[in-house]
């Protein structure tokens, strides 16, 4: 198919318009983080750095950020392990119920967050509470890991699909032990997919509100929960915009890194 010059220009314009639409709200967030009017009146009458200094000194925001980082890292670690194992099972073996396994892995992200949330809440209360395990970081990690598995699974599976199994077989034929093949052949091939999967899983956990609401308990506050509590308060809302602006700015680094690492696969696959 030969795209005409006009077709290319039209597609380019549509893409530019789409990106403008994507970035308009984000620019507004950035602008409101320095808007002197806390109710975000448009157009802004005066600019201020007050929200930035308040955000950087907010202990609540810092604690919430720390909690989110730990929850995200925990969930990502579990998802990396379980997602990779499942991807190997489904793509290197043929067995009865193979389709059901992929279905089961997709289910936690496909079902509404509120259903997952209240289901986990009910289960934790009936099963974990009698064992003396209360709601906290642990229950948040369990909840997040459950829907993060699919992200790692998809990335690793996509990579495995494109990698010939003969590579590992050749390694075995040349006398490598299974762990040597894993260490020197399979792992290097999978590394970009694992990195991209981990990054997206972390991002998903970092931004999750609904499941967290039902699994966190009173003492555990992740960043989105803190944001949810503070956005409704008129004098805290701009502080939240500062945090968002910071996160957008910082996110370019990991996203770009993941893109470089996985550019030879399918790009940042979900």
């Amino acid at each position, binding site marked *: 198919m030969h795209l005409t010059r006009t077709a290319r220009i039209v597609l380019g314009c549509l893409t530019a318009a789409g990106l403008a639409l994507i970035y308009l709200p984000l620019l507004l967030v950035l602008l409101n983080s320095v808007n002197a009017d806390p109710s975000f009146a448009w157009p802004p009458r005066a600019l201020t750095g007050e929200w930035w200094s308040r955000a950087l000194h907010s202990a609540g925001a810092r604690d919430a950020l720390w909690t989110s980082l730990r929850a995200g890292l925990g969930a990502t670690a579990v998802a990396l392990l379980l997602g990779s194992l499942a991807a190997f099972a489904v793509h290197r073996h043929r067995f009865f119920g193979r389709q059901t396994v992929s*279905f089961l892995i997709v289910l936690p992200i496909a079902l509404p967050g509120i259903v997952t949330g209240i289901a986990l809440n009910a289960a934790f209360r009936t099963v974990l509470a009698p064992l003396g395990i209360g709601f906290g970081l642990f229950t948040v990690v369990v909840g997040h890991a459950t829907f993060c598995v699919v992200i790692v699974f998809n990335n690793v599976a996509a990579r495995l699909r494109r990698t010939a199994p003969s590579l590992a077989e050749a390694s075995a034929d040349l006398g490598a032990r299974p762990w040597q093949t894993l260490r020197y052949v399979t792992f290097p091939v999978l590394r970009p997919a694992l990195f991209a999967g981990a990054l997206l899983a972390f991002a998903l956990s970092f931004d999750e509100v609904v499941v967290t609401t039902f699994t966190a308990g009173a003492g555990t506050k992740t960043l989105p929960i803190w944001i949810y509590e503070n956005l409704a308060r008129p004098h805290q809302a701009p502080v939240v915009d500062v945090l968002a602006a910071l996160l957008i700015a910082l996110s370019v680094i990991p996203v770009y890194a993941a893109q470089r690492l996985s550019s030879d696969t399918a790009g940042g696959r979900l």
Partner: protein
Amino acid sequence: MSATNHEPRTRGRLAALLAPPLLWLVLAYLGSLAVLLLSAFWTTDPFTSDVVHTWTTDNFRDILTTPVYRTVALRTLGIAVAVTLLDALLALPMAFFMARVAAGRLRRALLVAVLTPLWAGYLVKAYAWRVMLGEHGIVNAALAPLGLHGPGYGTAAVVLVLAYLWLPYMILPVQAALERLPAHQLEASADLGAGTVRTLRSVVAPAVRPALLAGSVFTFSLSLGDYLTVQIVGGRTQLLGNVIGSQVTLDLPLAAALSAVPVALVVCYLAAVRRAGALDSL
């Protein structure tokens, strides 16, 4: 690889690979869903709101016979379909440009540009839209010279904001599918005399369809369960998620029974797209 599958060693390895993820999903996830479904058959003390463990199917009968639940379920379904169609419409030209026109650094930069907003935070973005759609917001300010008025808060705003939030989930799989399409297939199609429209229909569409369906799993089911965006920009609009959310503390058995509605919808949807091969390319 399938030839060696019946050897005991391979089977042992398969069991070792499958056991941890399956145990986790069955115990932590399906177990929780089973607990929830079970509680849908219980009832609530009308005075204390405590759950009473008496076996009853009243909750399900209530849901099926109360017109308001049917209205909310249909509205939720309609919004999820509208969001999915809107995202497909927005994603196709962008994904096409990214995969087949842009190359090298531009392609990488565009992918980063599409991925970055995922980190900005769901709530922050939804609130940004609340500010934009407000009576004195930027949308009305921009439309005023044209004599137009923005949608304000309501169902249209919910569709718009949800489509905005899930758009990257649709662009990325479609882009990946288009990028994988071998150039020589497109050339062969042209050499055989197919015009652009014919090539789009016979070569590009079959390659993109599973990816569109895979993206739609996200846009459809995330919209189906959303309740925060509705609270933020929905005005008085209520979706299934809001109804479930408002019942959780009052009447957990009823909330559990209501949860069965989106669960059934999503399972039907997944079963349908699985037949079309969407889950393989997710």
